[in-house]
């Protein structure tokens, strides 16, 4: 078991190294001349040359990669061409904001998705099931930026009950930096007014982000549960007179949840992806908005930095989902085998 965990961890580290190569290729090799790319056509050749030397672009590719990776490991991701600050400092500032929004979104998604899935299973074939199905389709097919626009229209102009821009109202002072997540920081300081305001700012973007994933999770949960209802073990348990409610919530849910978990981890990853647009629309100062502006301005150091951080987060996400699956599925936990 221990060896297995180590092996798995090793493979994740391998993926991380591979990812660094991929990012290196995207940012430094594809553009041909990253320095010119970054500075644009209107800058003199000398300035570009100076940047080339500064970014080690005058050295052979493997050396460049080595130097870049060496820096990255020491948390030196170079300076952002846009903010003129070290990229790592920018990330430190913006990452907590994104984490805050994504975490809330993930919680909404998991709870909502599983709940709706259970409800749809309970009323299979009834109108509620049909309604949930239609809503799921709606959720799945609408890109999150459309939700974001709709919410801004709805709450920004028609019924302005929730804020549609920024992290915190201007009248409230930003909290002292502890974790960087405003809600948590306010809570730790006992500032409930601040917490409530920060929380209200999170609601719309996180809902816009999670609707697609929630719909996906609901459909998947329902699909697995309905498929399992005809399994012999459920028939057998029903034949022992176990009440339908308990059967549904315990004996049917647990085995049906296992495949959903892995997919949900992927959905959370794509929430990060969608955050690139949604944060921008809600003018929410998070890592994704930072990443997007880096991309639009060809800020190569910032792009590589953001992507590496996201890659690291996704790998942690994968490890977490592996752990949850192992916790739910004794076959994985005790044998290391599972459904494979």
């Amino acid at each position, binding site marked *: 078991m221990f060896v297995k965990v180590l092996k798995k961890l090793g493979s994740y580290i391998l993926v991380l190294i591979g990812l660094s190569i991929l990012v290196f290729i995207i940012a430094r090799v594809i553009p041909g001349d990253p320095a010119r790319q970054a500075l644009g056509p209107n800058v003199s050749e000398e300035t570009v040359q100076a940047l080339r030397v500064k970014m080690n672009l005058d050295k052979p590719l493997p050396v460049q990669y080595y130097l870049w990776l060496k820096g990255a490991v020491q948390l030196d991701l170079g300076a952002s061409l846009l903010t003129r600050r070290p990229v790592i400092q920018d990330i430190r500032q913006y990452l907590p904001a994104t984490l805050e929004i994504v975490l809330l979104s993930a919680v909404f998604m998991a709870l909502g998705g599983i709940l709706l899935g259970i409800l749809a299973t309970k009323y299979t074939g009834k109108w509620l099931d049909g309604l949930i199905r239609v809503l799921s389709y709606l959720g799945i097919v609408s890109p999150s930026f459309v939700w974001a626009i709709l919410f801004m229209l709805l709450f920004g102009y028609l019924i302005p009950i929730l804020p549609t821009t920024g992290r915190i109202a201007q009248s409230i002072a930003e909290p002292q930096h502890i974790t960087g997540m405003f809600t948590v920081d306010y809570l730790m300081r006992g500032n409930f007014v601040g917490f409530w305001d920060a929380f209200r700012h999170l609601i719309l973007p996180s809902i816009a982000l999670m609707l697609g994933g929630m719909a996906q999770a609901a459909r998947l949960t329902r699909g697995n549960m309905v498929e399992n209802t005809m399994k*012999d073990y459920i028939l057998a*348990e029903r*034949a*022992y007179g176990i009440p339908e409610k308990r059967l549904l919530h315990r004996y049917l849910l*647990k085995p049906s949840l296992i495949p959903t978990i892995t997919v949900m981890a992927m959905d959370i990853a794509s929430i990060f992806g969608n955050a690139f647009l949604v944060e921008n629309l809600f003018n929410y100062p998070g890592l994704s908005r930072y990443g997007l502006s880096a991309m639009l301005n060809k800020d190569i150091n910032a792009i590589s930095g953001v992507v590496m951080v996201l890659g690291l987060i996704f790998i942690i996400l994968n490890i977490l989902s592996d752990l949850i699956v192992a916790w739910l599925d*004794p*076959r994985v936990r005790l044998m290391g085998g599972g459904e494979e």
Partner: protein
Amino acid sequence: MSEKNATGSVVDICDLHVYYKTYAGMVKVLNGVNLHVSPGEKVAIVGETGCGKTTTVKSILRILANNSVVPEGEIFFKGQDVLKMKTAQVKQLRGSGVSMIFQDPTMSLNPVFTIGEQMFEAIRNSGQKDANKKDVQQQLAVQALRDTSMPDPERILLSYPFQLSGGMRQRVCIAMSLATPRDMVIADEPTTNLDVTIQDQVLRILTDRVESKHSSLILITHSLGVARETSDRIYVMYAGNMVETASTTELFRQQLHPYTVALMRCIPRLSGGGVAEGISGRIPNYLDPPAGCRFAPRCPMANKRCFREKPGFYDQGDGHCVACFLYEKEGGC
């Protein structure tokens, strides 16, 4: 039917029809099944793949698939009409009346719960006195496992199904089904996927447990040999009908229905002598089954009437009944 209920039978099925709604149309599986089980009796239902054995017994517990319909027929459990039962009565029927052992022990235990969790749940729902108490559950479960000659029952309770071999799992299922007293146990091909030496042990444990608890048993099997060695009476089933029933000794002394006769000839014997050519043709399509006797298209003795009319269940004396016009008599079974 009412007088029959008074005779104190455990289960009585009268003229049961079960259909399944599918995209291709109505699949008419059961075509008037009659079944009668007395207290303490061990009955075997023998038939080939797809003849409706499983559907018959699942209907007793009302665990048929959602797309099934019962257009005709009645099922009585100790005089109560099962098909008209309310939720509470169904719970009682399942909790303490009838239990069922499924064919594939790898599929019939929940893979993500321990044996103990599953057994305790079954006991809790049995309506048994003090069944909600943890120690009572533990005690009953351990006793039940010990009765099925399982080594180290306490450890078994903490194991997950995948940690046990097929034979062990089937013994767990037997133990679970008889952890609390039952009027009847249904075993649906409990040994089909097991080796003969394991089959032998499991069948012995099953009959032993059923006898010691004074339960009735319905054993579904495709093997006449298994039926002969475990049951008091045998029903031979073909394409949704009971075609012949008799006490086990009587049936092996004399088979009447052409299907039973042909089936018996196909079985390879340990004493040699080869096997017959088999039965030509295959089981009818349930979407559009033959109008008369469902065996007529494959029957060497069939005449025009067999294709038109469905035969009754004719008593030949001593409870030996045959559904074939060759043995037509007054009075049904």
